[in-house]
């Protein structure tokens, strides 16, 4: 079970507003996060990953406290070790596809399996600048999965994929998530995306103004 209760100020367009979220997410579930632009969806993922600090709040993941501002507990991103797919991929320009995965894990069998799932075997020695938008996005997903994270956070992860590739990749990923009991949180703007796949949906409304 993942329990989230946070309060984080957002500074968008010079208006100070507050993101408030209280949620209980069952372990091993797939949750879609949606809402208007600027509502704080990406910020929520970053707070969970330990990449942004909220003013107040608690996050517990599988009975381990990741964050408790009252008691001064805040695990580092390295300790939380979530899988994170960034909105613009955040691939390392100096590394090839294979080097990205080797940087994340030493498990060669797992790396081969990931390359097959992402259909990137033929591009293993290419750097991101020589990959298409869809290939880059697949690599970002594979890299996030490489550490076999218990919690996977994905920010618009399928936006550059064609429908056929998306369906195939999501099917393969679903199988992996089930096998690894991964809890998945996906931010998506597309109402049709992940239809019939996610078990829960969280609407993040426009943040409360005037903190």
């Amino acid at each position, binding site marked *: 079970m993942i329990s989230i209760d946070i309060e984080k100020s957002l500074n968008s367009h010079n208006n100070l507003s507050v993101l408030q979220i209280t949620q209980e997410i069952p372990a091993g579930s797939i949750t879609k996060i949606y809402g208007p632009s600027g509502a704080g969806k990406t910020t929520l993922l970053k707070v969970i990953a*330990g990449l942004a600090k909220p003013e107040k709040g608690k996050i517990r993941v599988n009975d381990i406290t990741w964050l408790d501002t009252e008691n001064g507990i805040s695990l580092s991103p*390295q300790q939380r*070790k*979530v*899988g994170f797919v960034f909105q*613009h991929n*955040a691939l*390392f320009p*100096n590394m090839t596809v294979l080097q990205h995965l080797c940087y994340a894990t030493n498990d060669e069998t797992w790396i081969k399996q990931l390359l097959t799932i992402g259909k990137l075997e033929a591009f293993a020695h290419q750097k991101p600048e020589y990959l298409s938008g869809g290939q880059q996005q697949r690599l970002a997903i594979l890299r996030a999965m490489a550490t076999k994270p218990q919690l996977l956070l994905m920010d618009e992860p399928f936006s550059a994929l064609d429908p056929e590739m998306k369906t195939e990749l999501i099917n393969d990923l679903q199988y992996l998530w089930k096998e690894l009991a991964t809890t998945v949180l996906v931010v998506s703007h597309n109402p049709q995306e992940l239809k019939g796949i996610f078990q829960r949906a969280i609407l993040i409304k426009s943040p409360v103004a005037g903190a």
Partner: protein
Amino acid sequence: MDLSPIILTLKLAAITTILLLVVGLPIAWWLSKSRSIIKLIIEAIITMPLVLPPSVLGFYLLLAFSPQHGIGKWLRDVFDVQLVFSFPGLILASVIYSLPFMIGPIKSALQQLPPSLAQASYTLGKSERQTFIHVLLPNIRASVLTAATLTFAHTLGEFGVVLMIGGNIPGVTRVASIAVYDAVENQDYSSANAYSLILFGITFITVISVFVFNKYKAKSPLE
């Protein structure tokens, strides 16, 4: 023609550049991470040699390391080291004087990298040090080369600081820029011309090699 000033200049520039790479990379990384009043003050101090007359910097270094008082006296009494009018003194002065040329371009390049690169590395469980070595540093290679070249070229042309702290001791502190000045003072224009031409040639080759290396990768060293 006595080539020792040229050799001494190249030796000084090479040692200064290597030392500044070792010292400058971590300082630039630290300065690039976030802003605080302390960092702003330190950055201002590091930038001072860019605007301060070299003779002023040299004068204060001369006072600070004079064996008669302060740090200079302590260094002489405890370690038997004299920095004034010595080659190690020239190195120290050059390192301080060229600090902004090494740190500025590297810090700026680090700040231009998207924060998500380091964040992606952290979520993979990598420490800040691992992230710096494997992710950040390889992606600012062109800027590091530019910074090292600027530092090297700048050290080649040092005059005021070097003259103040090192004087003009042949084979010890008499670098090429001082040899040029000395030759002109003695109306030996052919030696002055020879030293100047060699300095010009070395500097030109150094700078053009960066332009060639960075042709497709980075901005010109002047941007």
